[in-house]
């Protein structure tokens, strides 16, 4: 019953915020909308009872919020210089592309009529729960791929650190 009430709220929040995130010109507002979007997505994961994914999304959302609160110098209120007014033709092409994609996909979804799962009531051994999470991580090819993803992330952060050091060095030289 609670899910029936909360699910439409989460969906509407996600839809509104995703439109706002791409239409706003301010980078800070875009980051704020993205954090709200992540919170809404975690709500959807809660309604699917995938608690691990919901927790990860909430952590991401909290990270963005902390970054915006703790680093006030990162807040850019003015729009970026390269974000000039778009032409009508470009806007029309973008709207047509997005609407065409949405229409085709929704028609496909409605035509297929996926049957929902009708499992036993009160089944507590859910795949999204933490009981099945670690065994499936260590099973097969998933762990190496995840490791690669995290190594890439670390590499990006290291590259940033190195580039920052170089910038400060160049400034000192000048």
């Amino acid at each position, binding site marked *: 019953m609670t899910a029936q009430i909360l699910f439409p709220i989460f969906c509407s929040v996600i*839809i509104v915020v995703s439109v706002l995130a791409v239409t706003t010109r301010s980078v800070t507002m875009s980051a704020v909308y993205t954090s709200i979007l992540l919170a809404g997505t975690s709500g959807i994961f809660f309604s699917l009872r995938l608690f691990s994914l919901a927790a990860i999304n909430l952590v991401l959302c909290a990270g963005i919020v902390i970054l915006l609160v703790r680093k006030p*110098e990162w807040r850019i209120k003015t729009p970026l210089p390269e974000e000039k007014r778009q032409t009508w033709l470009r806007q029309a092409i973008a709207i047509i592309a997005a609407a065409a994609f949405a229409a085709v996909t929704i028609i496909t979804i409605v035509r297929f009529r996926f049957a929902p799962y009708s499992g036993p009531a009160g089944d507590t051994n859910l795949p999204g729960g933490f009981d099945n999470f670690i065994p499936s991580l260590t099973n097969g090819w998933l762990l190496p791929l995840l490791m690669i993803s995290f190594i890439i992330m670390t590499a*990006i952060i290291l590259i*940033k650190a190195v580039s920052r050091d170089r910038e400060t060095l160049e400034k000192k030289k000048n």
Partner: protein
Amino acid sequence: MNTDIHLEYYLITAVVMFSAGIYGLIIRKSRISVTVSLALMLNSVIINFAAFNSYLFFHKTEGLMVALMLIAVMICEAAVAIVLFMKIRTKEEQAKEEKKPGTKKL
């Protein structure tokens, strides 16, 4: 699993989010906005994977794991966005310093 909410509702929400991402990808020029649009599209794909896994393949966890990997990719993307953001900040600061009277232009 709550069977009162149909799978189609999740999919339609994801489709709308993906369409917004496509719109942003076409219309935006700055790299940060493009990154936000890509994050939107990735998020919609994650919702799709999670919903399909929960409804159609309830006893398996492959969809969940792929969704987890996509979240890792999204984190990488966020790192790239932060780097871009910091570069913009340094450029702005440099421009402000150059505008100050009495500073030499190299």
